[in-house]
């Protein structure tokens, strides 16, 4: 065998029919890479049906693993290497454009000689066309080799592949075995032994068949890392935030956050309430918060739509509430399992009337964890609604990040139910800041009634003009006060230049990586990620003015100049761009698309090059 090739990083996919084990093989191998110190981002490949017909494009299922010699913030570009259980799984990845032109494909050669000539034919066609386009195909007798070790090769293939990949990426076999032994720790010894055999066989198979192997060096000197997806991070972050009730209704891709919580929340003294619908889910959370037990609600787009009315009530009654929206493709049912950032304007403006609220977005899986205590803190100090916008990319991606330190700050203490002083008011607004103290039920002398009608300081219904104007002012003022505490967003790169790319939420990793590449090429481009979209932090306009051009990059639809009927006047901008234009009056352009998958750094890189080229051409004229 040749010397292993040293790689900075590699993107590996393992795909099979749904239920055939590629998911398990993928997560196990990823875990192993993490243990061996690689930077990591994994993305689930999920079919859209529960049990699609096998050996079809729609059945492709598996995992995509970006392993790297440095910390990783996103899923990366095109795939470098695919292990495909069959040619249709492979074809589906070709069709969605996931693979690099020079991709290496490792595929089971049993289909070449399958009883069904149709399968043989399509196997050959897929592989031929791939080779033509520059791919390398390694056709190997995987199933046959696997069947030598186990009676049920279909079941055993996952660990066989883990062994094979361990060989391919020069992971230590003994480490791999001991890791997998840990996974199966609770199983009978025979099962453990079978899996050890499979890994070993896979490893040996690799040694015998691979003419080439790879090494992706570990990242050095990182603190202790954890690996999880964004929904798990939200679940754990909710515990860290002191939440004791998660009131929800199932909806993809938000639900798994509550699955995580359901699994262990009761041990923490908390509970998950699955309500009859999303309206009830948010109502329960509001009731609980109002009564003094911290509760949150988690949902996705269609669920947000249903919560609209109650979210307005939260704002009006100044009941603290954090509502997490794990965004998916819209509008309507849209692309339910796929990523998009299309709920930004909904979060900001869905409520009839003027309902000022805080809207913030985590931009990494790590932030999914840390944003939760921050969101709760803001919601309680400002008696405010805080909408946290995550998305399917964060929800199902898995990333390594520094193990959070557990602090007790936000964990609840027993309620103070002492009598309130005479004359205490439930909306004793500080006229400067709009802030006031809550009075929780149970406190003697504090009796008051929360209402969605306009009310005065005492919480009493009031229909007079001054009172309505005052209530509106106080609720709005709180955002200005919060804004005054925010810092200007960091600029990634130089503070001035030709192009500033502005993004929000989960696209940060891909955008910054692209910007970094462009910077390395000497292009004068920087990036900004906006965490608070309401209120917007200070310093944005000033920062924009230092660049010749500012544009947002979003996983959102926008009209494209040059398309039929589209003019400067009627062009519909992407969502963040609308907000920034209104706020700064800077001519913020946008580049948006809605492919239902995360951005790839190479795409953004392409956009940057093109834009800077255009700027130069313009100047030239």
């Amino acid at each position, binding site marked *: 065998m040749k010397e292993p090739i040293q790689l900075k990083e590699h993107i590996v996919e393992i795909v099979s029919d749904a239920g055939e084990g590629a998911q398990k093989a993928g997560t196990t191998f990823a875990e192993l890479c993490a243990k061996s110190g690689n930077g990591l981002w994994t993305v689930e490949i999920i079919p859209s049906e529960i049990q699609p017909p096998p050996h079809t494009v729609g059945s492709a299922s598996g995992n995509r693993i970006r392993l790297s010699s440095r910390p990783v913030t996103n899923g990366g570009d095109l795939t470098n290497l695919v292990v495909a259980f069959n040619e249709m799984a492979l074809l589906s990845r070709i069709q969605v454009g996931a693979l690099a032109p020079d991709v290496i494909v490792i595929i089971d050669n049993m289909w070449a000689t399958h009883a069904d000539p149709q399968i043989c034919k399509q196997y050959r066609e897929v592989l031929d066309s791939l080779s033509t386009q520059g791919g390398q195909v390694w056709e190997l007798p995987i199933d046959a080799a696997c069947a030598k070790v186990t009676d049920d090769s279909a079941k055993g293939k996952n660990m066989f592949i883990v062994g094979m990949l361990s060989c391919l990426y020069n992971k230590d076999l003994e480490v791999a075995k001991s890791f997998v032994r840990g996974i199966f720790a609770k199983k009978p010894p025979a099962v453990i032994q079978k899996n050890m055999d499979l890994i070993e066989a896979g490893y040996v198979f690799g040694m015998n068949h691979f003419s080439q192997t790879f090494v992706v060096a570990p990242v050095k000197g990182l603190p202790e890392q*954890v690996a999880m997806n964004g929904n798990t991070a939200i679940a754990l972050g909710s515990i860290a935030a002191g939440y004791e009730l998660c009131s929800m209704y199932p909806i993809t891709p938000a639900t798994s956050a509550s699955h995580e919580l359901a699994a262990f929340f009761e041990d923490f003294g908390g509970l998950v309430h699955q309500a009859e619908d999303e309206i009830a889910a948010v109502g329960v959370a509001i*009731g609980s918060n109002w009564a003094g037990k911290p509760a949150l609600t988690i949902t996705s787009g269609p669920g947000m739509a249903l919560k609209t009315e109650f979210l307005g009530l939260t704002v009006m009654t100044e009941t603290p509430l954090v509502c997490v929206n794990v965004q998916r493709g819209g509008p309507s049912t849209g692309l339910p399992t796929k990523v998009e950032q299309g709920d930004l304007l909904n979060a900001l403006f869905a409520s009839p009337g003027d309902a000022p609220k805080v809207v913030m977005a985590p931009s990494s899986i790590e932030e999914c964890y840390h944003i939760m205590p921050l969101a709760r803190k803001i919601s309680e100090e400002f008696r405010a609604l805080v909408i946290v916008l995550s998305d399917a990319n964060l929800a199902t991606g898995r990333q390594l990040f520094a193990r959070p330190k557990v602090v007790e700050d936000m964990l609840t203490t027993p309620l103070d139910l002492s009598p309130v002083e005479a004359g205490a008011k439930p909306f004793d607004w500080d006229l400067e800041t709009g802030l006031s103290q809550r009075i929780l039920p149970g406190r003697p002398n504090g009796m008051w009634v929360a209402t969605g009608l306009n009310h005065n300081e005492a919480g009493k219904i009031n229909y007079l003009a001054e009172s309505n104007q005052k209530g509106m002012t106080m609720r709005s003022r709180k955002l200005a006060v919060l804004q005054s505490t925010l810092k200007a967003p960091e600029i990634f790169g130089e503070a001035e230049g030709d192009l500033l790319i502005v993004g929000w939420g989960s696209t940060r990793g891909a955008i910054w990586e692209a910007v970094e590449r462009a910077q390395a090429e000497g292009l004068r481009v920087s990036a900004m990620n906006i965490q608070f979209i309401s209120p917007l932090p200070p310093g944005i306009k000033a920062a924009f003015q230092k660049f010749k051009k500012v544009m947002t990059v979003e996983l959102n639809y926008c009209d494209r100049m040059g398309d039929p009927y589209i003019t400067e006047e009627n062009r519909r901008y992407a969502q963040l761009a609308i907000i920034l234009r209104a706020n700064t009056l800077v001519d913020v352009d946008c580049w948006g698309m809605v492919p239902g998958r995360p951005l790839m750094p190479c795409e953004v890189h392409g956009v940057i090059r093109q834009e800077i080229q255009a700027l130069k051409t313009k100047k030239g004229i």
Partner: protein
Amino acid sequence: MSLTIDDFVQKEESTCSYGMDDYTTEAARWCKGCGGHGALGALQRMLRDNQVHPEEVVCVSGIGCSSRFPHYLRAYGFHTLHGRALPVSVGVSLARPELKLLTVMGDGDCFSIGGNHWLHTLRYNINSMVMVLDNEIYALTKKQVSPTSRIGTVSNTSPRGSYLEPLNPLSVALGISNISFIAQTASWLPGHMQATLEKAWKHKGLAFVRILQRCPVFMPNAFQGGSVDFPGKFLESPEGIPVDKGILRDAPVVAHDPRNINAAQAVAANSHMEKEPLGLIYYNPEVPTYSDIRYSKVATVDRKAKAKLLDDYLTRYSVES
């Protein structure tokens, strides 16, 4: 032992440390003759008789004339959204099971827009007394047909008479699993109403009380105007609500076993076409409440322990190499 309103006023003068004032904020701003006044008074008397601490009472309501209730009761209150009182009550009951929870809704509020929460919250059996002031009309929005309006009801959205047989809330409720308490009373029967509320208050679980309510402004002819001629029948049983005929001229008293679901369904069936049952229709104090069920499985952990546990959980995700 039928009591008139005057008798009640008498009774109110007996001394005790919480008086009626302790349960009263402002004068209730319902119309003259509105059944809301009677229901509020009955509730306040009941609270007074039981010397309930006002600060421990939470009154959650929806939107409608009836849902102004919390504003007139000296207690904590949450006047929520049309149809959405019950979810908020579920939240309060999960958050603070020790508080004394009362949910007040109108017929449109509970049975029309709020129907789904009604169905499911009955099944949760949260620990709350749930009063529906059923005037068979949308009053606050000025007279539109409600699900409980009799067929032919002339309203602003059914000017030529409404089209459908009314929904029977009793028979629907009796079809829901986990129901534990269903009673019916009327706003013009103060004695019976107070006794009903008292029984409901003491029930652990969801006590669903439908109060037939006079709305002289928009529905004067419902319930024979809430008059002596109202065709009710009182349900009598040892653990039931004491019969108190109030002003009713002739209302038969029938024996009824509230523990028997089939008997309850028979009594409820066609109630609006025959005599309306008054009293305890169904009763099963054994049904566990939702918070009891849930908290029986929830650990009690202090801050320290919680932090430790979280740290342990993080270890599961650790990739120490």
